[in-house]
């Protein structure tokens, strides 16, 4: 009886370890996949990554957008990678690439966050640019770029970075 009890405990511990290993492995794979979608300075001349990229999974999303995570989770969220870019004038843009479960999940969250009233021809499956931010979807990805100012350099950066991310996504699909 006592022996059985120990076997059960060992099995439970092993299963927890396997699940944890699986999650870590999945997150690492996602990080690798999403890192390949981040523009380099070669891809977007004049704009460089100024912060190390961070990846969040479902659990981490609560930390990243505490209070706003539900919307993404509702539509089917997998991972997000975030990074910040800056030009030589110190104009900063935040890039977020949300990896959703599939294209319809990406379309769902996009419809909630954006509209096509000011779309950019050829960018993503659908796109929307506003005064200081831009959203587009391509396949299972929702890409959000946010500038911190409303000026020409910001808009120029939004479009150039978005175009490069779109190219990288297309190549990956």
């Amino acid at each position, binding site marked *: 009886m006592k022996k059985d009890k120990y076997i059960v405990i060992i099995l439970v511990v092993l299963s927890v370890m396997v699940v944890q290993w699986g999650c870590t492995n999945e997150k690492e794979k996602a990080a690798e996949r999403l890192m390949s979608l981040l523009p380099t300075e070669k891809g977007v001349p004049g704009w460089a990554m100024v*912060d190390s990229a961070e990846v969040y999974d479902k659990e981490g999303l*609560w930390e990243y*957008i*505490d*209070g*706003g995570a*539900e*919307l993404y*989770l*509702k539509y089917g969220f997998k991972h997000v990678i975030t990074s910040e870019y800056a030009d030589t004038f110190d104009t*900063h843009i*935040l890039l977020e690439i949300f990896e959703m479960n599939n294209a319809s999940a990406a379309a769902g969250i996009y419809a909630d*966050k954006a509209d096509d009233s000011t779309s950019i021809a050829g960018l993503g499956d659908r796109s929307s640019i*506003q*005064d*200081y*931010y831009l959203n587009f979807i391509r396949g299972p990805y929702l890409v*959000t770029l*946010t500038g*911190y100012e409303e000026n020409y350099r910001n808009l120029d950066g939004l479009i150039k970075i978005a175009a490069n991310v779109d190219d990288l996504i297309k190549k990956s699909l």
Partner: protein
Amino acid sequence: MPGKINRRTFIKQTTAIGASAVIGGQILFDLFGPRADSAFAVETPDIVAIKGTDYFANTIKAVDLVGGMGKFVSKGSTVALNVNAVRNTPGTNVRTGMVLAVMKMCYDAGASKIFVFKEFPKDYWKNIDLSNEYKEQIDSLTYSEWNTRKVDLPKGKTLKEAHVVPELLDCDVYINMPIIKHHEGTLQTGVLKNVMGGTAHKPTNRLCHLGPNYKGDFYEDIPHLTQCIADLNLVRKPNLCICDGTEFITENGPFGPGPLKKLDKIVVGIDPVATDAYCASFLDLDGPQLPTVTKAAEHGLGIGDLTKIKISEIDGQ
């Protein structure tokens, strides 16, 4: 209660004496300090809304008009600031100038320590030149380590207990500093909602958002969420509410990015319910009817009926 007047009368009166109140008030303040109002029996408003682009100066002026920071912070007291500033997205953060002004006022009043619940986003202090002048104070801020303390809420209708940051309970003075902005679930974030975002630990926060019967729909139970927010405010009432209504998102809240509305208003109040009810008009909402406002008012946390509140609307710098 002598001198009890409603909102409309108060605004009319303050407009009529506007110039003398502002100029004269400043002279009295210069001569006698923040207690000049009591010396001359000027009625202190419950809410001050100040309009202008000098957010540092206007925050100080608005706090002075509700009695001055010395009314809330005494020598040696500890202060906790619940500032809604976690991302750099425009229209989602409290202005740096407002936080600097509050820090300055607290230290000037004799605060021994200032706690901040959440880390500020990267480059937050670079937004304003004044940061160099107040570097010492900025460096002296103590950030919460987010230990947890369980609080029983016997009067809570939905939440019977909450897990919050200990500094919320341990500080002598608690100042709630939200930005007024859109929220997908509660329609507005403000003083009441900021308690959930800024002080509650994950299990409490999740329970509020998802509810006990969560089936996967986004904000499927708004009555549950708003009741939880009202209940959570039972943990501790703020001593002072200082709201950023200068520029904020009107959609895609609470994190944006979204369309911006610029009003250049800062609102300071003593009553968290009334302050939220007042600020709701910034988002074209009916403040007294907001579920968080009505439910918090039912708890006796404040007054949602703005006709019973003394409001002073003034132009600042």
